[in-house]
Each structure stands twice: as C-alpha cells, then as structure tokens.
C-alpha cells in the first residue's frame, strides 16, 4: 500500500503550526515582528513541506489506488450522530492538494518580496498559513462537516486577507461584502447537508456514496441544487459573484492565491466530489451549466471594458470559473478539474505578474513624490502603463506566456483544458436538453474569443507601446527611469508558474489525438487518473466532430489573438477602446456598469433589509428587548427603595430586631 498516506494529517497540521508560531510570536513580541525574513521563511516552509509530503503520497499512488482514509480522532458524538476528523487520500483530493500546496508555496515565496515594506508582515503570513490549513481541510476531509469547516475557514481567511489594510474603509467594506455573499451561499450548503443527513444519517463520503439509492430523485435534485448555490457563493457565479471584483482590494498575492487558484475552486471540487450524485439529476446539471455559461459570457463582456488590471483579471477569473461550471453541468467533471489545475497555473502567474507591475508603478509614484513632484495616479490603471516590456522583462515574458495559455492557443495548457470543456458541452448537446447545451456551446465559443481578446488587450496595453504616464501627466516626465524589474523572490515564482502554464496541458492531451489515427494508447494521463473517482459522462462524438471542434477552438483563439494584436499593439489601445464604445453604444455602457448587479442588489435586497432593520428590528431591540431588561432592573430598584429604610445605621435599631427575634424563637419553643 502507500506508506506515505498515513502521514497526510501532517499536511494539515504543519500550516496550522506555522500560523500559531507566526501569530502568537508576532502578537506577543515587538522584536519578532521585525524579523521579516524569518517570518516569511517559516510560513513558506510551513507550506512547502506539506507540498513535499503530498507529492510523495502522489508518487506512491496509481490511478487504481484505493482511497485511504486516515482517522485522527472522534470530533462530535451526540446521540446517534458522530463525526470524526478523518482525511481522505484519493486521486481527486491529491490533485487538489498538489495545487493548493504547490501554488501556495510559490505565492508564499512571492509574498516575501511583495509585502516586504508592510508593517503587518507577520499577520499576513499568519493568515496565509491559516488559509492553507483551512483549504487543505476542505479538499482532504473525508466528510461533509470537515469540508464545511474548511469551506467556512477559507471564507474567514478571505475576509481577513481582503481587509488586510483595514484602515481604508473601502477595503474593509470589500472584505465584509465577500464574507456576507459567501454566507448566503453557505446557508444553502447547510440545508443541503441537512438533507443529506436526514436521508442517510451520516455525513461521511463513503456512507453517502454507498447509499445513493436511498435518495429520492427530488431530494437528489435539491441537494445538488443547494450545493451548487453554495458553490456560486464561494466560486463567484451568478448571482453571488459580485464580491470577487471588490476583493481585489486585498494585496495581490491574496488575489492570486485565494481568488484565482484555490478558494474559488472549492465549489468545483465539491461538485466533482459529488459527481456520482449529480449525474442522477440532469435538471440540476442543466441549471449548473446554464448559470456557468451565462456567468462566463457576462463576466467576459465586463472584462472588456475595465481599465484596472486587477479587475480585468478578477472578471476573467469569474468567467473561467463559469467555464468550469459549464463543464460540470455537461458531465465533464474531469475536464473541469483539468481547467482548475491549468487555470491555477496561468491565473496565479497573471495575478502575480500584475502584482509585480503594480509594485513597480507604486515605486514610480513614491520616487516622484520623493523628488518633489506631486503626482497622483492609480497604479493599477493600465492607461498609465505601456512599454513595460523593456523595463520588466521577466514579468513581461511570464505574463505573455500565461496570456497565451488563457487564450487557448495551442499547445499551451489552457488550450487543452478549454478545448476539452467545449467538447463536453457539445457532447451534452447531443443528449437530453440538447438545444440548450448547443446554445451554451455557442456562448462558450464566443466567450473563448472574448477571453483571448480582452486578455491580449490587457497584456498589450500594459507591456507594449510607450510608457503613458509621462505623456498623460506632464510633471511625471522622465518617470520611466524609476521603472525596474522585481526582485528574484518575486520573479522566480513567476517563471515556475509560467513554465507550468506552458507545459501543464500535456497532462490531459485527449486520447483521440492518437486513437483517431489507429494508435491505441491512453495519453490522457489526467483522465486515467481521475476516472475512478468521478462519474464522467461518456463522450459520444465521432472523431471527425472532435477534430472539427479542435480546429474551431484553435481558429477562435488565434483569430481573437490576431485581432487583438492588430487593434491594441503600438499604442492603438485608446483608439480601439473608443471605437468599441462607439460601436456598441448603450450595450458598452451596460458592460461598464457591470450589468448593474450591485445596484440591483442594493435596491432589491440591501436597502429593504437595511430599512427593515432600522425601522422595525432596531425599534424592537431598543423598546422591547432593552425595555424588558430595564424593567427587571426597575422592579429590583423599586423593591430596594422600599427595603432600604431598614438600614438606619443606628445600632439600637438592629438590637431591637435582634430582641424581637429572640422573643419570637422562645415563644415558638414554649408554645
């Protein structure tokens, strides 16, 4: 068997220990907080060692390995319900574990350089380790309670990290928004958990999946739907996605780790884990696919209009997550997981790259102030950038490579994963609800086109052309001398992630690439690996259709890229943006206004709830609840005011009472 699997609990415990060390020492000792290299090293090692352990567990497994369950201790015992802290090592959880610890360690390393000048350095790393702990609980837990613990834990850490610079009201508002929208989803997830418990009496995965026949089709539908609603909160889909763009208020490593690579993929992990349940409810899968597809296209259109580089990447994440849910809803669970992995690589690289750019733009601003130039600009606004490729070559090349990946250019990783998703959607178009799936396929192809287009818009505006800051702001003339590349702790993770973004796709090259030529080989490693733990729908398309789909995907990606190069290279960006705005008119305004989701929620949910709290609940709280408590106090005071006259302070009064008491006792004894 796999001897290393017994140590999986170490993977969970070590980040927790890192959190405790940095947290407690940083909280108690001023001198510890200054030792930034030590803090950062402890935190990074606290994630890297788990990565090594997970990797060795992974190497000891094969695609046929049985799941290993490591039970630590019994956590809850209440009557007939009991729940253990037990972790599951199977192919699905190991893949997620590798992504979380691997990409996590790279981002920890990056943060050592990025957060160097921050006062709260120790807190940042403590929170990051806590996040890794919670996320690992989520993906390695063997029951729904431990998964939910991790689910909530990553929500809390997301809140703490988004609002890291809490002195700025806007940033802490963004943190609150993230948490509240997550909570709405969590409520639905909880109800799903209750339904599961009611049906099988346990929340252990093994028990649930062994007893799927006990779930009536109605209950299965509702559990699937409610879990999906929970996933829309955590993984930022319609209707609960609005927190993710605001979450960019957090430091960029946070955006890379939490809102690109790991936390937002927990919804997809959840649904993949429950794939055997989802394939029993085609209706729920249809809803998942439709919402995923709509989210993908809506977010892509918004991304086209944004100028803040992190916002573009945020909406891009929402859109790519939509793709993943589209895959899940079409029965392509492995395809979705494949996209999770490749997306983690290229999106983390893109976010870290944007962090590198923002870091440098901040530096430019500082230097200008230092030299007496009172210049103010948004260091995240791409209209002030441009031409950065000659000043920041590592950042440029890694960013460009990741952009090729996300655009779906062959043979980068994004091409293989996105193509597989499109194939599954088209495949679902051949089955039940076929017309809807075919429509979704069309939307997905359009979204792929837009993805490539807006991503190259971002890359070309930021890195090609001329540096725009001195052009737009006259006092900032000569500012380009302050532009510099980021230190090695920041560029090394960029290169590693870019390398993975380029070659990572080869883990999932579709089988038909060779089988359609008569060679009977299984080159799709990921498919073979995850086949035993997910319930993928079979692909019924003939080879010719599959090759046509591949060709279409390549055509979409390449044409969008070429169009973007034509329109955005050599400083043509502003003119192109204006032209698009003119061409699409009021539709462009809808996109810029993010479809007014926030405003709609404001009007329909937030304002009524706020008014209701203010007028009804606050009055109830002050008048009824406080009134009741005050009344009790009032009664006590009333009786006190009557009784206090007994305390005259004169001894003889007390003596009189004493004598009366004695007389009473004696008379009682006599009579």
């Amino acid at each position, binding site marked *: 068997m796999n001897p290393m699997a017994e140590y999986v609990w170490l993977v969970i415990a070590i980040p927790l220990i890192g959190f405790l060390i940095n947290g407690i020492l940083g909280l108690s000792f001023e001198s510890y907080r200054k030792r930034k290299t030590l803090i950062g090293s402890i935190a990074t090692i606290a994630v890297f060692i788990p990565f090594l352990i997970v990797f060795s567990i992974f190497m000891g497994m094969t695609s046929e390995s049985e799941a290993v369950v490591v039970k630590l201790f019994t956590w809850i015992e209440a009557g007939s319900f009991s729940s253990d802290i037990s972790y599951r090592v199977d192919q699905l959880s190991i893949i997620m574990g590798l992504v979380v610890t691997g990409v996590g360690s790279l981002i920890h390393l990056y943060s050592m350089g990025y957060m160097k000048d921050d006062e709260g350095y120790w807190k940042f790393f403590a929170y990051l380790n806590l996040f890794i702990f919670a996320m690992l609980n989520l993906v390695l837990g063997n029951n729904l309670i431990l998964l939910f613990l991790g689910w909530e834990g990553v929500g809390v850490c997301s809140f703490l990290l988004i609002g890291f610079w809490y002195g700025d009201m806007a940033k802490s508002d963004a943190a609150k928004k993230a948490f509240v929208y997550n909570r709405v989803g969590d409520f639905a997830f909880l109800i799903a958990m209750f339904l599961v418990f009611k049906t099988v009496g346990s929340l252990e995965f093994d028990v649930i999946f062994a007893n799927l026949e006990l779930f009536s089709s109605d209950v299965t539908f509702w559990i699937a739907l409610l879990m999906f609603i929970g996933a829309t909160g955590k993984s930022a889909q319609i209707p609960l996605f609005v927190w993710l763009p605001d979450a960019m208020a957090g430091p960029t490593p946070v955006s890379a780790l939490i809102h690109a690579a790991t936390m937002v993929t927990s919804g997809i992990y959840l649904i993949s884990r429950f794939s055997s349940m989802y394939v029993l409810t085609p209706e729920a899968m249809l809803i998942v696919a439709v919402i995923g597809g709509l989210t993908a296209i809506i977010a892509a259109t918004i991304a086209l209009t944004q100028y803040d580089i992190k916002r573009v990447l945020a909406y891009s994440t929402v859109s790519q997550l939509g793709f993943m849910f589209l895959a899940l809803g079409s029965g392509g669970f492995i395809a979705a997981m494949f996209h999770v992995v490749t997306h983690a690589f290229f999106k983390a690289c893109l976010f870290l790259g944007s962090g590198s750019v923002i870091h440098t733009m901040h530096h430019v601003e500082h230097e200008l102030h230092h030299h007496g130039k009172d210049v103010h600009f948004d260091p995240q606004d791409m209209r002030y950038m441009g031409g950065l490729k000659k000043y920041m070559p590592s950042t440029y090349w890694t960013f460009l490579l990741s952009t090729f990946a996300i655009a779906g250019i062959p043979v980068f990783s994004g091409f293989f994963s996105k193509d597989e998703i499109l194939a599954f959607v088209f495949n679902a178009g051949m089955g039940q609800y076929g017309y809807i799936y075919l429509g979704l396929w069309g939307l997905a192809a359009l979204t792929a086109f837009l993805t490539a287009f807006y991503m190259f818009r971002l890359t070309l505006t930021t890195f090609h052309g001329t540096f725009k800051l001195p052009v737009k702001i006259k006092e900032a003339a000569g500012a380009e001398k302050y532009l510099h590349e980021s230190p090695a702790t920041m560029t090394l993770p960029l290169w590693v992630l870019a390398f993975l973004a380029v070659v990572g796709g080869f883990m999932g090259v579709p089988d038909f690439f060779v089988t359609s030529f008569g060679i009977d080989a299984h080159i799709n490693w990921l498919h073979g690996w995850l086949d035993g733990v997910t319930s993928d729908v079979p692909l019924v398309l003939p080879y010719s259709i599959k090759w046509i789909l591949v060709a279409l995907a390549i055509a979409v990606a390449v044409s969008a890229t070429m169009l973007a190069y034509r329109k955005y290279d050599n400083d043509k960006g502003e003119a192109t943006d204006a032209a698009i705005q003119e061409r699409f008119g009021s539709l462009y305004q809808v996109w810029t206004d993010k479809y007014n989701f926030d405003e709609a929620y404001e009007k329909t949910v937030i304002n009524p709830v706020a008014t209701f709290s203010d007028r009804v609940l606050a009055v109830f709280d002050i008048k009824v609840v406080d009134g009741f408590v005050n009344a009790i106090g009032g009664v006590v005071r009333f009786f006190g005011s009557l009784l206090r006259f007994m305390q*005259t*302070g*004169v*001894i*003889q009064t007390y*003596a009189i009472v004493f004598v009366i008491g004695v007389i009473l006792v004696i008379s009682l004894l006599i009579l």
Partner: protein
Amino acid sequence: MIELEWYLGVSAILFTIGVLGVLTKRNAIVVFMCVELMLSAVNISLVAFSSFMGDVHGMILVFFVLCVAAAEACVGLAIVIAIFRNNITADISKINLLRW
C-alpha cells in the same frame, strides 16, 4: 425561706430593665451600664439555681461571666473613647455612617 421563684423574678425584672435600657438610651456609657445590669441579672439567676440545687457548677460559671463582663467593659469603653475622639459625641444615635 425565700423561694427560688422570687430570685428568678428579680433576675428577670433586672434583665428586662437592662434590655430596655440598651435599646432606648442614647448615651453610650448608660448603654454599657445596662449591659452590665443584664449580666448581673444573669449572675443572680445562676447563683440562685446553684444554691437551691446544691450544684457548685453554677457558681463557677458566675466567675466566668464576671471575668468576661470586665474584659468586655474595658474593650467597649476603649471603643467609645475612640468614637468620642473623632465625633465629639457620646450619643450613639448620631453614629449612623452605615445608613442608607
């Protein structure tokens, strides 16, 4: 022969007078005198019982009571003097700091 009841009656009357004095008199010294009166009344009662029952234990208890009365009078008067030094009054109805 004077009967036992007469002695006990005297003791009771003296005790009652002492109690009333303790409860109503305002001068601290007079209150002490009444306390001594109460103790003496109890002594009479003890001696009477001891004499009429032929048991010497009563007389021994009288000795104890007398000792304690003396000691108590000393301590009490010391307290009165201490109060008098601070408040310039021997009127105990004026000592009411623990009043509501």
